[in-house]
């Protein structure tokens, strides 16, 4: 199987049962993406495929040959943090950090969805998506659990990044 992860091509021999998450972690050594529940409930495995956030545990690697896959390693590096990574540090938006790569990949996808004008469950009007209020951030990030319950600071970090781009 051939994959493009963080703009780098890879060629891998793997069982067709391999989830995209296991491919990243076990075959490519990209352990930034985390395995929490392995059933799409916690969001720790969130990555971007062709720019869209998905649960990498709930899809087969073989189904993503040729797709543009982006993981936390592709967003930032220790010496060059992504703006969301910086904001998470600044706002103390994690304690153990296990959910953080998924939170950040999810936030990148979520901010893009808002930019495209997609409404959410809490949007009062379908035709006029509101700005990214705290309730919008919370609803749109509900697929990412944080067992340390850093939610208030995660919301602050995301809002900070969105506001600084405006």
């Amino acid at each position, binding site marked *: 199987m051939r994959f493009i992860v963080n703009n780098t091509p890879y060629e891998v021999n793997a*069982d*067709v*049962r391999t*989830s995209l998450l296991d491919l990243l972690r076990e075959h490519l050594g990209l352990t930034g993406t985390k395995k929490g529940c*392995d*059933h*799409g409930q916690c*969001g720790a495995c*969130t990555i971007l495929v062709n720019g*869209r*956030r*998905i*649960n990498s545990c*709930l*899809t*087969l690697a*073989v*189904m993503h040959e040729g797709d543009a896959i982006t993981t936390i390693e592709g967003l930032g590096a220790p010496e060059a943090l992504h703006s969301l990574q910086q904001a998470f540090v600044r706002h103390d938006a994690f304690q153990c950090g296990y959910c953080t790569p998924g939170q950040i990949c*999810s936030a990148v*996808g*979520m901010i893009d*969805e808002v930019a*495209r*004008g*997609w*409404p*959410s*469950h809490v*949007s009062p009007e*379908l*035709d006029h998506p509101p700005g990214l209020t705290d309730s919008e951030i*919370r*609803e*749109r*990030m*509900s*697929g990412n659990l944080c067992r340390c319950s850093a939610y208030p600071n995660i919301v602050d970090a995301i809002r900070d990044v969105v506001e600084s781009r405006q």
Partner: protein
Amino acid sequence: MKAFDYVRADSPEAAVSACGMGEARFIAGGTNLLDLMKLQIMAPQRLVDISRLDLADMKETEEGGLLIGALMPNADLAAHPVVRRHYPVLSRALLAGATGQLRNKASTGGNLLQRTRCYYFYDPGMDCNKRAPGSGCSAREGFNRNLAILGTSEHCIATHPSDMAVAMRALDATILTLRSQGDGRRIPIADFYCLPGDTPHIENILEPGELITHIELPPPPPGQQLYRKVRDRASYAFALVSVAGVLDMKEGRISSVALAFGGLAHMPWRDPRVEERLLGQEPSPALFEAAADILLGEAQGYGSNDFKIPLARRVLVAALRELTGGGIQ
């Protein structure tokens, strides 16, 4: 996960042909199927990958409705400008379900085919006539908070988990398929799902290897639309009770109405007697209560889901108030 053969289809015809024999399944988004395969609740011998087929678009029909490709992701369907403007009940239902990540992956066709989230179906250590026909139903005497109160049988009290399908039911969607013989069917959603009866493992009328290619919506109905969902969490939870409502008024009377319910039954639930009771009438609290009497006349609780009977009544009455201009009270 049990081993399987993987086949990537390059046309709907090839997909149907590859899925026609043995224990084969189509995979599109995979968000429900792979979840179940990891638990070995489903163990197909062959997966036919249809995710690259050219079935992800939407176009308007000559009649003024919509032809939705079965592979359109739930997120794209919810956000489509035509759906938002003319079928808001469908956008609202989709946005009330799952998460941003799941809606990006899950397909329209796959959403219709979601399996129940009954705890006992999901636990291979328990009896379940849906998972293992003939083994019994642990749910009837067990934790059944999220399970059905209408259309149940002694063999199964599972609910259908989809929000989208409830809106599709209120909108009278038609499901278009392709079969291995090369012919297709147009199946009204009213005829698509099965009640559990003594075969709860059969959930719809699709034949083995029959592929959903499109979902067709009739032209937008007149009047107001809403989707109201009650659940245990504010986000990312299946419905305890939900209602998709479409209602129009003329000269102070209800001139057309469609009401479909989620969380109550093995399928999106719609009772024509409820709508007949409302048609031609002036809205009033007494009328709404009379409609609820009809909806819930044969409802049966199983212990921890008894609360759904009064809850469904309140959800219906509140939806009718809002749809008839009475505001949320």
